[in-house]
């Protein structure tokens, strides 16, 4: 049995309250891609410690006294996994599935998902945060970066939507 989704405006208010809670307790907002960065720098540091020590990028996060896995965003994203799972269990939405528009194959969906993930991962590092960390959280604190991120992300997706319409409609 599949239950309906929550009213979007109610969900938005609740999302805003979660974000406000993060600000009030920890003095910082939500994020997602930063947790992936923590895992990547930790993994590369295990495999090639000399490489990370000599890199301007990795050395910001690994080395003496630095513990990239004990980061706020790593624990927050573990919470997201738990929260998403609980919600899916409550609403009867837990199942293994490759979700795609019926007009395309599952294989095509997965290829585009991988490509999209690669771009999003790269872009999130260049843009210093993704939709949640840079755009949503940034907008809540009225930062210029937050509004620019939001406009660049959604503007580009709208601009390219026509060319990718066969994947979705």
């Amino acid at each position: 049995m599949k239950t309906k989704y929550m009213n979007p405006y109610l969900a938005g208010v609740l999302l805003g309250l979660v974000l406000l809670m993060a600000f009030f307790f920890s003095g910082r907002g939500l994020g997602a891609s930063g947790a992936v960065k923590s895992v990547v720098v930790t993994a590369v540091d295990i495999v090639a410690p000399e490489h990370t020590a000599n890199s301007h990028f990795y050395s910001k996060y690994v080395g003496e006294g630095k513990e990239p896995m004990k980061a706020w965003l790593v624990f927050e994203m573990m919470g997201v996994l738990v929260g998403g799972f609980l919600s899916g269990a409550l609403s009867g939405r837990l199942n293994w599935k490759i979700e795609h528009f019926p007009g395309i194959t599952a294989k095509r969906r997965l290829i585009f998902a991988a490509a999209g993930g690669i771009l999003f991962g790269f872009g999130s590092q260049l843009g210093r945060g993704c939709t949640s960390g840079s755009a949503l959280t940034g907008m809540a604190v009225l930062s210029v970066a937050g509004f620019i991120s939001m406009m660049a992300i959604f503007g580009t997706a709208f601009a390219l939507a026509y060319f990718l319409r066969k994947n979705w409609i």
Partner: protein
Amino acid sequence: MGPLVPQEIIGMNWNLLIAFVVGIGFGFVLEQAGFSSSRKLAGMFYGYDTVVLKVFFTGAITAMLGLLFFSLFGWIDLSLVYVNPTFLGSTIVGGIIMGAGFILGGFCPGTSVCAAAIGKIDAMVFIGGIFLGVFFFAESYPMIEDFYMSGSLGSLKVHEVFGISGGFFTLLVIIAALIMFKLGELAEKRWPREEY
């Protein structure tokens, strides 16, 4: 009073537990809103489902107003709340690359983790892609570093640029959002889709 951890009203060792609890709320709300479905998210860009617009802007406005009132009541010291810095070039180009990733992959990082939590395999593949993308960035950093650091404006706020108050700017965002919500509702009637 707040923020509690930066002012050591709550010990630093509680911070990661708070992060975990905040994350549970974040993941739960995203999933309840339907952000665990790429077809629902992508609906934003074809007009058949504008849940992204509604949840995203309602969330941002709720938090904006919350911070505004908390600061007015003396409940939070806004100077201790992190404001992400603006580096013009990399913020814009990074956003453009992310936007392309969004329409190709149908997720953003937060929503993909939420979708993977309920078993969406396409979301797991997307997450694999994020790892690769972050790794590519890390390895190409020496070539990108100059651009990454260029155009620094610091932790600049929008209302400071326009010389208006934070409260007035928030009002403008609310008015813009209400207009967009109306357009979203119209779009959903104009380009309806059956069950997906």
